[in-house]
């Protein structure tokens, strides 16, 4: 089941998580960019027309909710998957309210991540 190549932005402050997501999600045909905080993520999407964004909700420099809104303002068509270890339920609800298209709880399996991504790209 091969999907069309995508432009993907991976936003996470953990290098390990960024690598994991990249390895799990990306096909050789995809274009991938990464950012380690919200500010860099916003800078990235100015020149990079991301179709799919995975992002951690708790990151340094800019809180994930603000970053989420900013991303959608610049790239309204981007599909956003929020990946978070957050136990704080109100923030999770807020993320969906502000436009996140999917939500995945850390720690996640590669199967769960792939499933979320395919769900996200489906519609």
């Amino acid at each position, binding site marked *: 089941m091969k999907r069309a190549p995508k432009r993907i932005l991976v936003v996470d402050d953990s290098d390990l998580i960024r690598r994991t997501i990249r390895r799990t999600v990306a096909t050789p045909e995809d274009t991938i960019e990464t950012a380690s905080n919200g500010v860099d993520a916003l800078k990235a999407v100015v020149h990079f027309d991301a179709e799919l964004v995975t992002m951690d909700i708790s990151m340094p420099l800019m809180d994930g909710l603000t970053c989420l809104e900013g991303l959608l303002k610049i790239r309204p068509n981007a599909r956003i998957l929020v990946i978070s270890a957050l136990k704080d*339920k*109100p923030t*999770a*609800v*807020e*993320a*969906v*309210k502000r436009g*996140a*298209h*999917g*939500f995945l*709880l850390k720690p996640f399996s590669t199967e769960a991540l792939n499933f979320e991504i395919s*769900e996200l790209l489906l*519609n």
Partner: protein
Amino acid sequence: MGLVGLALLAGGLILPARSARRALASRLEATELENARAGARAKQLESERRESEVVLSSVRGHLMVIDPSYHIERCYSNELDNVFHQDGRVSENLLNVLQRILSERMFKTSRDYLALLFDPSKKERTVLKVNPLDEVEVDVMSADGVPSLRYIHFSFRRIIEAGAISRVLVTAEDVTERATLERHLRDSENQKVRQFELLIGILHVDPEALDGFVQLANEQLAAIDQALKASDFSSATSGQTALLRQRLDLVLQRIHNIKGNASLLRLEHFDQKANEFEQKVCDLKHRGALGGDDFLMLVIALADFRSDLDSLQILRVKLAGIQRAVEIRETVGDDLVTAIRDLAATIAKKLGKEVRIDAHGFDTRGLPADRRLIVKDVLIQLIRNSLAHGIESPDQREAAGKPRLATIDIHPLPDDASDDFAFSVRDDGRGLDAAKIRQRAIESGLLAGSRVEEVDDSEIASFIFAPGFTTSDQATTDAGRGMGMNIVKDRIVDRCGGEITVNSEVGRFCEFAFVLPAKSATLAAAAR
């Protein structure tokens, strides 16, 4: 409930029909027919109602359907009535229910969440994943007015009609049992971690001293308990404040005693714990007015302290078991010999050699700890050397007419006239290779080429103790860096003022003998 209402309505239709019988005679037949139909319909509805009651009574918890304004349309329940029914009335709106049972922040989140449930632009899967109400703590008042803490799990499902989200099905389930179990599990995990930390904190303490501490602390805690219980503090008035202060002084003395003993034994956990307790008592003592509630805090702190002390006691008993086991093992033999045997077996296996250690009569348990350490270092070094250089492979040994299994013989050299500890270590390997040592000594500059013919074999043997001297071509962890015999000389001769002799016969054996003076190196040096 709604179904019953419908049935009565159908029955009521016949009343106006009867009152107009005379004028509308022609319609009588039709009305009666209708009546009969309505009766049949009512019967059918009644049986459906019973059916759904049977189904619903098997549902644990609460089933609701809410409309887009969160109004509760239908409500089936056999549990949680006191959560959803205020004063016996069914709450008309789910928001009202939630406002009653949630904190303000969670209520706001839940209101947002209900909006997401009805928002067609949000995918149901995603929305269901961030359910903030999957475990809600609620204070429930039972029928006899006793409050209890319950955990309620809410779940939601969209009902789609004509392509739109018309309503949402809400289930509320009492999951107190599961939630409580989970919390117990977490508590006991925490308890384990704490016990482990306690254990680390008492390992350095002599078991008897520990027993003493437990006993003393128990006595003092009992006295504190007595002081706090002795009078009814809840009826304390300002006139009794002096008496209460007096009691606090008593508590202070006792806890201070525990603290002193804890710090003496370096039981840091209990030292700190007693210190915190002391601080609490001091704070109370300096407060203007005292009441019963103030003492409640102390009673709680006391229970906490006692629980830690109980843990300590349990650990102490377990520890005693371990220590006994260790003592029993020690009486079987010298654990140093056991360790050396293990080491020899490990190295031999690695080098493909076969060896047995004969240490009959060798025992270091009577030695002072520092001397024992030296013997240990020396033995480790000699065993490594023997296996790396002296002892041949089983095949080589067989070819040389020796048993395949080599022997390292460690035995004491007793001398009644002296307190010095003397022993020898002998292997039945190939012995020192004088030619090779001589050659290496020249190569490494230890021996001037001009002197080669002058030195005899006994001087040759002394070269092996020089730092960095080795006959091996390659260094491994077992031998070859040439520092091993230098360490032996350092320990025995330089530090203790002892003696080493070497005796070897090519192809047959190599033996080292040591004398470790009972006096320390510095004393030995001063006496010289």
